[in-house]
């Protein structure tokens, strides 16, 4: 496949692995966090860990949109899905996330009209096809997907699609990173920066990491060679005593981001004063709600939601996994009570979740010989 195979070349992978090996100091342990769930998935899918020296540890970060949705928001979504006559639309992964009383997939089996969509525009199309029914889109994701939600809302407004509304769960990447850096639990040496988010926000928002915390950030693409090269760039910064924001993913990410997308977002969204993150608690100014100008398209205002905060199940350690404090397998319920087919925590649901990625792909890393 052109433009993909080039970034999956095993020869170049081995060359980068050699370069990485030459950059690490013996006896020093390096902890590098990949912020984005897409990176976590690639790391396991391609077995990238296998190519890193033992003393370079990749720590999985909070950038998996499904993983950070708290149970109360799932319950709110289910309440909307159960409104008689409503069509509830969401991305596929979200359907399996457990709320306090079942998932959206269960609500569907009980009769709610829950449909999987690949894009918010699909939801709008459903609304136009079913003018006598209320169509609700469960918007989810970091700055990566927020512009497409914003454009869809703008189109709904322009075309006067009055039966369409949006339950907004968009979150922003910088506040949780700052929270992580302020947390005493974790000592990180650097960050593999989120590639997709950066296509929208650019590199500038990450400048605070080297400036205030003295850690390198390398914004990275998602192919295996991208990730290896980013790790190598981080290690080189460390070896040379530098800490700055570098852009490995310059084929897609401009320094200033996507100005048009940011403008549309500013028109459609406003910052929530605070928002609950699964396992991380409330983080101020970390999520988006529809702005006053779009209030009439806000499903929460149109229908009202219970809005009850639900505590995470006691056994669930998603918060620690999301912060990179523990490895997936160190969670008390990992792989026994909590599995991809019967998840307790969100990290076991999405393929971008660290637990699901480790369970599905990672259990037999090189330590075990195949005979």
């Amino acid at each position: 496949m052109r433009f993909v195979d080039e970034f999956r070349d095993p020869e170049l992978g081995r060359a980068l692995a050699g370069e990485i090996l030459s950059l690490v100091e013996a006896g020093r342990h390096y902890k590098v966090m990949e912020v984005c769930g897409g990176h976590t998935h690639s790391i396991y899918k391609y077995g990238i860990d296998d190519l890193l020296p033992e003393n370079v540890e990749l720590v999985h970060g909070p950038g998996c949109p499904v993983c950070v949705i708290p149970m109360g928001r799932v319950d709110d979504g289910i309440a909307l899905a159960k409104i008689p006559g409503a069509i509830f639309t969401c991305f596929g992964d979200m359907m399996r996330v457990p709320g306090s009383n079942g998932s959206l997939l269960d609500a569907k089996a009980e009769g709610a009209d829950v449909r999987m969509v690949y894009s918010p525009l699909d939801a709008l199309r459903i609304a136009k096809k079913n003018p006598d029914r209320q169509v609700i889109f469960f918007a989810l994701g970091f700055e990566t997907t927020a512009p497409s939600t914003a454009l869809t809302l703008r189109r709904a407004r322009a075309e006067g699609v009055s039966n369409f509304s949006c339950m907004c769960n968009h979150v922003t990447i910088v506040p949780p990173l700052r929270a992580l850096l302020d947390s005493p639990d974790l000592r990180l040496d650097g960050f593999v920066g989120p590639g997709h988010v950066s296509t929208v926000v650019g590199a500038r928002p990450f400048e605070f990491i080297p400036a205030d915390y003295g850690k390198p950030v390398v914004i990275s693409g998602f192919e295996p060679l991208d990730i290896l090269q980013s790790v190598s760039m981080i290690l080189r910064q460390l070896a040379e005593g530098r800490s700055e924001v570098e852009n490995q993913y310059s084929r897609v990410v401009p320094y200033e981001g996507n100005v048009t997308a940011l403008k549309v977002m500013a028109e459609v969204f406003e910052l929530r004063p605070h928002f609950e993150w699964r396992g991380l608690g409330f983080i101020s100014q970390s999520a988006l709600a529809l702005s006053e100008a779009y209030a009439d398209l806000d499903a929460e205002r149109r229908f009202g939601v219970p809005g009850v905060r639900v505590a995470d199940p006691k056994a669930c350690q998603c918060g620690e996994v999301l912060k990179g404090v523990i490895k997936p397998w160190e969670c008390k319920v990992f792989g026994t009570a909590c599995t991809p087919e019967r998840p307790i925590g969100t990290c076991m649901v999405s393929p971008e979740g660290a637990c699901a990625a480790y369970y599905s792909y990672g259990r037999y890393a090189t330590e075990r010989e195949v005979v």
Partner: protein
Amino acid sequence: MTPSEVTREERILGIIETTRAKRPRFRDAQITMSHGAGGKATQSLIEGVLAPAFGLEELGDSGMVEVDGTQLAMTTDSFVVKPISFPGGSIGELAVNGTVNDLAVAGARPLSLSLSLVLEEGLTADELKGEVEAVARAAEEAGVRVITGDTKVVERGHADRMYICTTGIGVADPRAELSTTALRPGDRVLVSGSLGDHGTAIMLARDEFELDADIESDTRSLWPAVDALLEEAGPSLRCMRDATRGGVASALNELARASNVAVLVDEAAAPVKPEVLGACELLGIDPMYVANEGKLVAFVAPDAADTALAALRSVPGCEEAVQIAEVKTEPPRMVLVDTAFGGRRVMDLLAGDPLPRIC
């Protein structure tokens, strides 16, 4: 990672393997779409509810019954695909080939089919006639006869156009000595051609993605391929599987569990058409999990692998047959894959529901 951490991780992995090795229990309060997707939820339904109820031990694509010294194979399948016609085929052809293939990979020469139609009020006569013709044509091509049938009509909205159920009978081929428990370390795993065509064709035919690609379903009878394999490698052929729902990955997992062996897949060897790979890449799906309707997976003793491969390649439609994996001892009941990039990872059964109603 310190040595004690490795030990702890190993210990936890051991606990997980013990949990995983247990017969899956069915603990759901209701049926969800996941139970139809061919992954873990389907497995829990079959092994947790159905097999124990009927005292079934070995679960193959067909059941065997002996009548006056003749071994007969019997199988049944329901077809609920949406949309009912798609590039490369339609529900009528699937209904014949799906059942014929379940007989064929069990080592049985397909003889006769029953045909049961559930029709939705309002289905047009043209659609019905078109599918009946498709059934007749596919049956003729596969060398089987439809000898009995049934029709039911349900109110509009209580079925989606038409569902078809076929039951097939075949006679066990004396050259076949197949068992799901027969895999031995060293055995080679062959596939009869490109993977993921059917599932991808259906996905695109649903028009949900605004993707256009020239991808056709691979629906076809596998009996010629099975016949060739039995002729050239009969006693060395351990087992075969029709890689339908859940794809090749699910077939490999089922067999690794049944035979208590490991399977190591060479990802770079898996034959996937560039357009299928491209569509799967965009949709975030692994072609190894995508359904086929005319591809078999054959497990062959090492010394007969080359002969078997040559036999397969001589059959029209199987020219791209290739070895994709090898059977190993450790870790038992696991499927691992060496990625094209040079890493190694697990290839587990799917938990979720990537694509319902593909057959």
